[in-house]
Each structure stands twice: as structure tokens, then as C-alpha cells.
């Protein structure tokens, strides 16, 4: 449920390193905004449900091959659990996932929308 009005511009895409992340404050929530090698930007909750700390934006970004599919992920810097950047699903524990957010890049600006419904 993300209306057009809820989009928040957080930074220019240049502020995010390829395969790096930044934390942003969106509607009072800490959001990890992550850019992959092919310049796709993803947003998920910055809160690592395993360590109970707000840190996911500081993790290492990479890919993991699952069923022949190259899944982009960020690994928590705390204890290394990996989260699928597209869905927030934890790749090491199927019972765990983190919320994701709508993202748009427009004229070099990264805009974060509302929380996506859990799929």
C-alpha cells in the first residue's frame, strides 16, 4: 500500500557504493537502502531480527546461487545471516524475513515508498 504521496527522497544514488548500503530514516523507521552491482536499488528494514540491532545496511552485498537463480543478498554484519534483497526472506532460516519497501530511482534520486505487504 504505497501511495504516490508517501515517497521519500533519501539521497542521490551516487551516495551509495555499488554493492554497498546506507541507512535512511523513512517515516520514523530505519531502512537499509542497498545498491547492487547492476545498479538496482533495494530497501529493507535495517533491523536484523537475529541480533536485534539496526545494522543491515552495513553488511556485505553479494549473490548466492539458489536453484540456478542468482539471488542478490545482504549478509548481516553481526552473525552473517543472508537476506534476499528482493523479498527480505532470510536465506539461512526460512522462518525469518524482514520487511521490504518500495523503491524508485528518479533523476538520480533514490525514493523510498511504503512497506510492501508480506508475500
Amino acid at each position, binding site marked *: 500500500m504505497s501511495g504516490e504521496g508517501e515517497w*521519500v*527522497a*533519501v*539521497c*542521490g544514488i551516487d*551516495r*551509495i*557504493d*555499488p*554493492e*554497498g548500503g*546506507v*541507512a*535512511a*530514516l523513512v517515516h*520514523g*523507521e*530505519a531502512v537499509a*537502502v542497498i545498491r*547492487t*552491482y547492476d545498479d538496482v536499488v533495494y530497501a529493507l*528494514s*535495517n*533491523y536484523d531480527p537475529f*541480533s*536485534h*540491532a*539496526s*545494522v543491515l545496511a*552495513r*553488511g*556485505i*552485498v*553479494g*549473490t*548466492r*546461487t539458489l536453484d540456478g537463480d*542468482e539471488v*542478490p*543478498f545482504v*549478509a548481516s*554484519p*553481526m552473525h*552473517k545471516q*543472508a537476506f534476499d534483497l528482493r523479498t527480505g526472506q532470510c536465506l539461512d532460516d526460512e522462518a525469518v524475513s524482514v520487511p521490504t519497501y518500495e523503491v524508485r530511482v528518479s533523476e538520480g*534520486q*533514490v525514493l523510498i515508498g511504503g512497506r510492501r505487504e508480506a508475500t
Partner: protein
Amino acid sequence: MTHRQRIVVLGHGMVGHRFVQAACERGLTETYDIVVVGEEPRTAYDRVGLTSFFEKGADALALLVDDTYPDPRVRLMTGVEATDVDLAERTVALSDGESIGYDQLVLATGSAPFVPPVPGRDLEGCFVYRTIEDLERIREASREASTGVVIGGGLLGLEAANALVQLGLDTHVVEMAPRLMPAQLDDGGGTALLRHIEGLGLHVHTDARTEEVVGAEGRVRGLRLAEGEIEADVVVFSAGIRPRDQLARAAGLAVGERGGVVVDHQCRTEDEHVWAIGECAAPGGICYGLVAPGYTMAEVTVDAMLGGEGRFDEADMSTKLKLLDVDVASFGDAFATTPGALELVFADAVGGLYKKLVVADHPSGQGLRLLGGILVGDASAYGSLRPMVASDLALPENPEELILPAGRAVADVGLPDEAQVCSCNDVTKGAILAATDAGCEDAACVTRCTRAGSTCGTCKPLVKKIVEDHFAEQGKQVDRSLCEHFPLTRQELWDVVAVHGYTSFDEVVEAHGSGRGCDLCKPAVASILATQVGQHVLGRGRRTLQDTNDAYLANLQRNGSYSVVPRVPGGEITPEKLIAIGEVARDFGLYTKITGGQRIDMFGARMEQLPAIWRRLVDAGMESGQAYGKALRTVKSCVGQSWCRYGVQDSTSLAIELELRYRGLRSPHKVKAGVSGCARECAEARSKDFGVIATEKGWNLYVAGNGGYNPVHAQLLAQDLDKQTLISYIDRFLMYYCRTADRLQRTAPWVASLDGGLERVREVVVDDSLGLGSELEAAMARHVGDYVDEWQATLEDPEKLARFVSFVNAPDVPDANITFTQERDQTTPADSEGPVVIAAEISVGAPQ
């Protein structure tokens, strides 16, 4: 039949112990109780390793855990001598007055050193070299002594001479024969060995007959030889051994011409209830002065008592040892006595190398077969050559390659399954393959299951090769690749980067990997690039590779805050710096704690506070301590000679110099170090990756220790070094580690994983046998030259600093998920219940 029978074992040495062990393992204790009578004050210990008593103490030599057997049916007496055996009554009289009956009696009384009947041999200061107590007495006497003589230049004599050298004595060796180790070596081998031994400062007298031990006031003063006198305060007799067969003689059992209880091929004496094993026995009329034949006798006897058919026929007298740091091996028909035997010799008199193969035409008419050989100076080929003797295999086409210096790799010669690989424990290649097929995944497991390689260790490389080849044949890969993105080990990755000169992860992954990497390979590549190429870890293209702590140059703590550790080289710090640290901690509300590495850790910094904290620390003259990196941490030191009344060297200055030299060096895992100013070892240097301990003459270098989960003591690599040599050895050691270790492998497991272990390290670092020394030193020199303080460089670079914000769009708002409470007047992290909504209505800054 309810009556349980009894086996009495006389002697609890290495072989008696092996007998009891095998008896328990093979179920003999189901029908028998076992009583062991040992004359020494302690339970069995590793006599083969006796000399290491000086370095490691008696506990390290013990063969039993807690001095007992886990089987309650074994009773063990120590400090009690058997004085008489009554064959008719089947009883044994003991020195404590007790008499015990037996159903089976096993003599395992070993042998005693032979002391030739020269005048003066009973003087105070004369010793033999057989038991821990002998060594304790020699050590005691050496405190007051300056010169020692060993009578006998055989295997044990040289071992004793080595001990006297270790005890700091000027040492002479007196040998009657024209060369050293006459029983194992020919003249060429003896000459090469002599060159090494004299090079170590020992005085060797061959062709020399001792006429008298000269004394004054009941104490040894010297030795008179036919050719003149040697002054000496300590004399050690090592002129051969004699089997301890007195009990058997007195009981009327047959003994051999040269002593030893005569036994048949099952180790049974003339009396069917009496057996003899080990050095006191003479199967086929021959006594064996080595442990492996004794072990076989112990196994054969257990087998016979169980009704088995095992035989002891003749033993392999092959020997390989390291004497005073010189490799010596002699095996098979070393003296070429077989008719038709030919010799193939490689000798390098300057380098002290002598290698001889004894060969003969193969019975098949095709090629040659190996009969035996002698190796001095480099015995690395022994492990693969010795099994070839027993196996009758045809030699490869150019057999000289087996002994030429370049052919140092473990020869791959396709041994047959019956070939004995481990002679100490009689393990064949077939048994090793069976263990792998039964589920062993690696060589270490095979060693645990079969004992192959567990005694002298010589065959370990061969065991490993057999296991790996076997897996390779089955298409089973022992997968050591880094992760799904790289089919390479860390060492291979290191080489790839070095050969191609890559400077970025992208180049490496595009050329040699797949996908976009992960939290395993990215930090590994980052570390390799940092060591080889240098450049700032937060530089463009580098920062996203860094692991958690390196990524923000601080240590992430449980609630998402960081801790900060400035470098305090050698643990020495001025009051001004202490005050500066105190003020920073107070002003930023940080929790402070003294670390084990002699510095001060400040906890509870928010990521966005790190630059301001470091601004203050850098201004006060401090720099990054790299507590966050897989890098050199600290060089811990004691206060040393400058203050301490026991110190013999200036440990603090050296520690500071070493810490400043290696600071910032990225390595496969963290590296910790220590320097102690005397043997009291207050800096705990032996629990470090490298540790330096002062001696009167210089510095001893220990390597590959650690504390932590699996503590390991560092081992002595080299002794009495001057500072320059010390530093060049540490340079080489660290760079060799950076090059060849696996990711997150500390130095101790790394050394253990090398073929040859510590010896391998010594070859590379001390002997420079690969010729890598100057290259490794040059790489370290580059590191030292390129060093910059990472935090100062970060403060000077706005691009790097831009990352240190709580929120990219609200840099002034602290992340409310990070909270603290107070404990004992300091800050501690508060537990989080879940993500919080940050209430502050913030003006979402226009993104830059």
C-alpha cells in the same frame, strides 16, 4: 570355569605399555586380570622423545592419561622391582616383599646402558642417558658445569650430546669407530654428519679410545684418551645398551650369545607360560634397540595368547631421526651387502648433503629395485623410499631423481597395498585405504584410526598423499575452495592475484570466479589486496569488500555500537595519552576496559561519533590499533631489563619496534605477539602467534601459539638470535603465513597443516631452502614502507568520512534502536525488544 587367570607384566616401559594397551583393545582382559610391575617411579613414558623432557617436562612424555588404564582389570604398580621368578611355582617376588602368582608372565624389562669398565666411571659427575631421573640429574649437574663429554657417537650418544648443548655445555663426543653413527652410516654419510655437527660447535673425536675418567676429590675433572686429555665436568656414557635379562638368566631360561631372552617367533620362551618382548628379548638371537620391533612383539604376544598365528620374523631396522637439527636416515641394506648391489650416490660436501641409494637389478629383468639407502642432511625422501624397499617395486626410470635436491616432493610411485607405510606401527597402504573407505575424510582421521604417522611422524606426508590420491581416484574432491564464487583455495587466490597483478575484486571475480561474491570471498580478497597492493581499506571499490569491523574501522558490538582501540605499542603509554583517552571516554560517555593485549578499549561509540572521537585521539598523537582487523593486534611485553631486576634484555623497546613494524599488516587471521625480557616469561609470549623470549645471548623465537578456544603453546623456531636476524625471521614467517594460510586460519593450525609442520617452516624461514627468504622480506619491507594510519587518512578524506552517518538523509538524528543503560558507573548496551519508530519529526534533508 569361574577362576579368572592372571597375566603379570614385568616392566612398564614403552613395550610393556603397548602390550597392556593391545591386551585391553583385543579383549584379552575378558579372561585375564593384568598386573604390571614397574621399577621406575612413574608410569610408562615416551622414551624415544626423552630429550624433549628438558623443554616440555615429564607430563608431556606420559603415555597414560592420569597414570591409569581405563580398564579396571589392569593393576599398575610403580616403584616396585621384580627380584625373582620361580618358574615351578609360577610366582614373582617383588622388592616390597610381596609375591604374586601368574598364569602368564611377560618380561618387558627393556635394556640398560652399557658402561665400559674404565677406571673412574663411578665418579660423581658420571651419568647414563635412559630415564627421566637420569636427565634430571644431568640437568642438575650442568648448572655448575661448563664442559661435557659424551662417550659414544652412535644414535643415542648424539642425542645425549644434543641435550648437553641445550643445557649450555661446551660439548665433546668421543667415538671409538672411525666415524659417527657407525652402525647406520657409511664413511660418506659419517663425513657429512660430522660436518654438520662440527658446524654446530661440538667437538668430535673419532677413532678415540677412553682410557680413564679423571677425577679430583671424588668428582669428574676430565677424560684421558690415548691421544690426550679433555677437561670435563659432566660425563655421559652412551656406549651401547645391554638387555636386562638377569631375571630370566637366574630362573634358568636360555639367553642369547649377546644377551637377551631367547624367544620363538611368537615371543614365547622355553617355558610356555613365560614370554619376553621389547629390548630384553632376542627373537632369532637378535636384540633390537628400537621401539617399533618391540611394539610388534607386544602385538604378536597378545595375538598368541588369544590363540592367533601372528609371527615376529625379522624387524626393519630403518631409522630416521633429526639429530641436532640434521636429518639422518638409514634403511634397508644400507651397506650394500647384498650380492650384486650397486650404489647411487649424491654428495654435496659443502652443503653437508649425502644421499645414497642401494639398488640391484629387478628380478623381473626390468629396471632396478631399491634395497636400502642412507640420507644425511635432507631425509625428506625417506618416507616414500623406505616402503619401496619392502615392496620390491621397480624403480622409476631415473632413480637418481629420487635423491636429487629438486626431487623433494613426495614420490608418487604407486605402492602396492602390502607396502608398509608406517613402520613404527606396522600400517600398510592397504590398511590406510581401508580406513578411508570406512569413512575417514582426511589424513588426520586415518592417523587416529590406524595409528599410521602417530609415533615418529615421518610417514605423515605419504599418508596424506595416499589418502588424497585415493579420493581423487574415486572422483571425490576434498573441497578446500573458498566459497561458491571461487573454485580456489585462499593460497591459490593469493597466487592468482600476485601473478596477474590484480588490484580490484572485480578483476579477480571476472577472471577467476562467478557471481558477485559474498561475505566469505570478499573479505578474503580484500585482505590479499591489502597485503599485496596496500592502499586504504576504505578506498573506492575496497570498502564494500570489508568485513563488519574493517568496514567502519571499529569493532561492532551487540547493540550496533562500536568500540575504539588506539594503538599502544608494546603496552607503553605516556600519562598525557592516558589522560587524552580518559577525556575522550568521559566526553563521549564510553565504557572503558583494559584489554588482554595491554591497551584500552572504549565501548559504546555510535558509528557517526567515530570520526570525532578519532579526531581527538589523532590530535593527541595516537593511531589506529587495528583491533578491528584480521591484522597484527599487539606485541605484548613485560617491562624488561630497563626496570626489572631479573630482565636480561630490553623487551619493551623490542616489542615497540616489532609492533610498529608489523602494524596494519592484513593477514589470514588476527596475529598476536609478545616479548618477554627473561625466561620468567611475564609477557606470555608462548601463547602468541609469534613470541620472543630474551636469553643471555640474544632472543629465542617461538611461533604458532594462541590462547582462546583451543590454546596452543608456541614452539621454538630458532635460538639466541641477534635482533636483525630475529626480525628477518619474523618477516619471513609472517609473509609466508599471509601467502599460504587458509582464510581465518590462525598460525597454529596453519603450521600443523603444512607438510612437515614446524620443520617446513624452519626450512623456509631459517634454512631458506626454497630461496624465498629475500622475496618474503622484500614484501614485508614494502608493507612497512607503505604504512599509513588508516584513521588519520580517513579523517583527511571527505569521501570516506561521508559514510559515517546514522542516516543518509538525517545525519544529525541518532538511531534510537541503539540504547544504553548504566552498570557499575559505566555505560552498557541495553537489550532491544524490536525495531523502534523514531519519533523525531525530522526535516528530511534535501539529498546532496
